[in-house]
């Protein structure tokens, strides 16, 4: 399959193509928060004809304080495990309403955003079910900060082996409380869902790549999935931002 979309090749391209901010001022994340950077580039790549669904998680709590939301796109909350369901419901409704002539026929991007807890743990079955619904066009974005960052930094299945979290401290008797290995979500989504149309991994420090991948996913259509890795250093055990290495 060939897709004809304009991708960014250089930083200059990127700055030209993505001038408008759709994830703007108003959020309460730390300076340099990688998950917030991911959302900023995802929103830029998606553009204004987009509905964003945000599951409970740090990017819900930090970004959508009433009166100061960072979103300049239509946005709705879904429950912690609801992302897969919400994108399917939204995309299905748009399809039905457009086919029945109750909404003008146009391309509207549907993007569901969930953290590692909401996607890889609580919402895994919904995300998996969503990726089998080939009739509908949507992107599920898992921003993986490797912890439950909204609730005091607890371990999730996406927390790396051996990491210190409030649920997995290191003690005198038990040296490693996080003894489980991280799941491989992108591989699981790609291998386990024969008709998923696009699966990618990305990182905010390579915004050209991230931007292009979001563009591709939305252009290809059908169920698509992107896993971004954006660790939350605030949660690293013993991390003190005042101490420079």
């Amino acid at each position, binding site marked *: 399959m060939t897709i004809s979309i304009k991708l960014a090749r250089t930083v200059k391209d990127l700055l030209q193509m993505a001038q408008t901010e759709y994830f703007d001022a108003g959020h309460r994340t730390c300076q340099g928060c990688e998950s917030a950077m991911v959302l900023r580039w995802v929103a830029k790549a998606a553009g204004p004809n987009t509905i964003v669904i945000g599951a409970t998680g740090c990017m819900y709590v930090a970004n959508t304080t009433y009166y100061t939301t960072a979103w300049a796109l*239509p946005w*709705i909350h879904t429950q912690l495990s609801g992302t897969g369901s919400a994108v399917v419901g939204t995309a299905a409704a748009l399809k039905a309403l457009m086919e029945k002539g109750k909404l003008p026929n146009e391309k509207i991007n549907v993007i569901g955003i969930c953290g590692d807890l909401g996607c890889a743990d609580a919402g895994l079955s*919904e995300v998996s079910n969503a990726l089998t619904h080939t009739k509908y066009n949507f992107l599920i974005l898992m921003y993986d900060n490797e912890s439950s960052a909204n609730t005091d930094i607890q371990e999730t299945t996406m927390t790396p082996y051996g990491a210190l979290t409030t649920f997995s401290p290191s003690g005198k008797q038990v040296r490693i409380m996080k003894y489980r290995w991280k799941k491989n979500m992108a591989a699981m989504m790609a291998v386990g869902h024969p008709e998923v149309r696009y699966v990618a991994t990305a990182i905010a420090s390579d915004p050209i790549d991230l931007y292009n991948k979001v563009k591709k996913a939305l252009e290809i259509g059908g169920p698509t999935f992107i896993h971004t890795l954006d660790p939350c250093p605030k949660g690293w055990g013993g991390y003190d931002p005042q101490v420079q290495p």
Partner: protein
Amino acid sequence: MSVTALESKRLEAVLKGDEEVEVVGTGTDAVAYALMLADIDVTSAYPIRPYGGVMQTVARLIADGYMKAEYIVAAHEHDQFEIVKHASAVGARTFVGSSGVGWLLAIEAIVAISTDRYPVVALIGNRALDDPGAYGVEHNDALMVRDVGWLLVWVDTAQEALDTTLIAYRVAEDPRVMLPVGISMDGAFLTHSEHVFKIPPKSKVQKFLPPYDLGNRKLHPSNVISVAPQVNEDWVTEIRKQMDEAMKNARKVIEEVYRDFAKIFGRDYGNPFVEPYMVEDADVVMVGMGTVSKPIKEAVRRLRAKGEKVGFLRIRWFRPFPTDDIIRYLSDVKVVAVVDRDYSFGSPFDGGAVFTEIRSALYEAEHRPLMMNFIGGLGGREITYNDAINMFNMALDAARKGKVEQRVIWYGVRE
């Protein structure tokens, strides 16, 4: 599996003609036909008995082209309810349903539907909760959401199920209400039994039910809004108060909608909230919800024939609770006997949920009747005509003595 030739002929008639058509079908079939007439846009299915029949009929109707809707098979009930919530948010008319433990698995999404004010209509094929397993009816599943902004209605015939489904959309989508409606139907007794009922023509339904319009709350790129952001203590109280107002408004809206229904379809349910049956001058009135009405009404007729002054009051709308009607019909009788197909362990006087609420409503009445509570018919156990006669005899005995010896009776329990 597909629509039969006879059914096809009848469906064509209601879709194209102006006359209602009489059919034989189950309670869940009746709801499915109503969904066809209401032109729902999105529905999500997950198998559980006894509600599941409705989704099988809807699937047939879509497959054979009698209705057009996105039919989404969900991963589980939480997925199912979250799907319709978000479909409703972009302006789709939706339907969903479940039973027993399935309804409870979805409860987080169920609450978010009402707190986000989406007029989803759900069918609850009432079923006992696990453990241990039981397919049969019990009302505790639906009653779990009695405090969180769902309108709850109990039906007792297939005709009432069909009509109430249409009424439910009209009430839920009214801008003064904008709350979801749960239609409760006794598992097996109504979901699976065959009834004769009439399907109204689509032309009349279009007159009765305007298109779903979310107004400026519709999520769309042309309407950049944020739905359900973090508000914390700043606004939660105000948002809950708005729901309180909407629920109170629903009483008036329900009355209006039933009046309109009678005018357009020619079927008049009288009082929308409760169905009084031979309650005039009654000394003893039994109260219940759902299909328990059948044996009790039969017992009322026979006891009346013998000169006993007994009656029956069937509660249709449990939320909003028909407080005024409860006071009007029950405060002047000698004994009110409530049949609860549910339990509420540790509640005041250890009675059932319906008993406790009726008792609370009657506290404000000028005259307060004696009250008895029969907890029974759990897990689908039948409450027969003989049971109803026994219950009436116990209540009549209390009326004669002017005293209730045992307030809450677990009826027919083996000890």
